[in-house]
């Protein structure tokens, strides 16, 4: 049965769909291939752009740190932190330093090796009201040099019921004396052990890749507020883009 279109229809979405079906069914496959190829190119570009920000790595000298940051977590649950190291250097030890916003100094746990150059550890669960937990990754190479990542902030979202406290005490290490009060912000009891090998203060900052910082609106300094209720949309593919919205 032939596919039918009413000639009085304008270029509505249903008409567009009908036109597309007609193109697909026609005996000229080159048009269909052209449309599909065009779509695949755009979607491939979209996939490349979105996957580029999944992990963080940096052209460091010998060791590349790959870490997908944790941005937010619910209270009452342990938070898993992963890190992967690539490159020619060898890793001797990896530590996960952490503290809540109420604490002055860091605690740390030693990250466990879960695979070839992959390390993993868990942050203890935070209580409701903690608001934020800072963490960083410190690793030492075979020469004993300690390198620390930048500090990441995890937003802790409160849950409606109080988090269930853990039964077993989690052993954590401290490089400085701690008062017990800040430890109460964790939902699990902690056993703090004073470390004999402090590294944080003398660690070298890791060279993270530069981030893209948004600049001013194109066309110079615009003091006027944006239109569209504060929204602006820019679409770019392969460096070619269009912007919509008043700036």
């Amino acid at each position, binding site marked *: 049965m*032939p*596919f*039918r*279109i*009413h*000639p009085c229809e304008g*270029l509505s979405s249903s008409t*567009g769909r009908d*036109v*597309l079906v*007609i*193109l697909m*069914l*026609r005996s000229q496959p080159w*048009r269909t291939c*052209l*449309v599909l190829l*065009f*779509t695949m190119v*755009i*979607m491939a570009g*979209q996939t490349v*752009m*979105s996957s580029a920000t999944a992990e963080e790595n940096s052209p460091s000298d010998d060791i590349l740190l790959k870490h997908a*940051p944790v*941005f*937010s977590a619910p209270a009452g649950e342990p938070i898993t932190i992963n890190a992967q190291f690539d490159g020619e250097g060898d890793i001797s030890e990896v530590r996960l330093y952490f503290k809540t*916003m109420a604490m002055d100094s860091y605690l740390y746990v030693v990250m466990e090796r879960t695979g070839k150059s992959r390390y993993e550890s868990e942050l203890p669960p935070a209580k409701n009201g903690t*608001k*934020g937990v800072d963490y960083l990754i410190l690793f030492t190479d075979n020469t004993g040099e300690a390198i620390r990542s*930048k500090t*990441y*902030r995890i*937003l802790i*979202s409160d849950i409606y019921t109080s988090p269930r406290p853990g039964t077993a005490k989690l052993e954590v290490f401290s490089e400085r004396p701690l008062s017990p009060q800040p430890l109460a912000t964790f939902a699990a009891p902690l056993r703090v052990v004073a470390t004999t090998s402090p590294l944080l203060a003398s660690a070298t900052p890791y060279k993270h890749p*530069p*981030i893209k*910082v*948004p*600049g*001013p*609106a194109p066309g110079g*300094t*615009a*003091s006027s507020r*944006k239109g569209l*209720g*504060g*929204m*602006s*949309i*820019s*679409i*770019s*593919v392969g460096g070619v883009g269009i912007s919509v919205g008043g*700036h």
Partner: protein
Amino acid sequence: MFITIREEECMIGPLKTLTVMLIFALFTLVGCAEYAPVEPAANTGTVFQRPLEEMQTATRNALTKLNFAIIKENELYIEAVHLKPGETVEDNESELVGVWFKPKEGSTLVLIDTEKRASGVAKQKAWEQDLMRQIMREL
């Protein structure tokens, strides 16, 4: 009067093919439309007589207390997304805030801009004033 598929040989020409391709492209690109804060003019910010490091700490804490998850950060810029209850950074319909720091001889100019998503506008707001007030409280 209806036109059958066999009779419309003349209707589907190159122009309509291009139209279909453009529709495809627009639908595809809308999904990856980038929204990001835009650095506002310098005269819209606030100068604090505080060093850069202090302003960074105060801003970070202010964002956290206002329920922002910091997703991008360097010495002179912080970008954060405001999370509503139940939302995550990977799955949200919330506004982005960008904070720029311009240090100068012991003082720091702080610029803030809110970028709202096209969807869920009713639940979003501009955070310039609230965030600036919270930063002042943190100092």
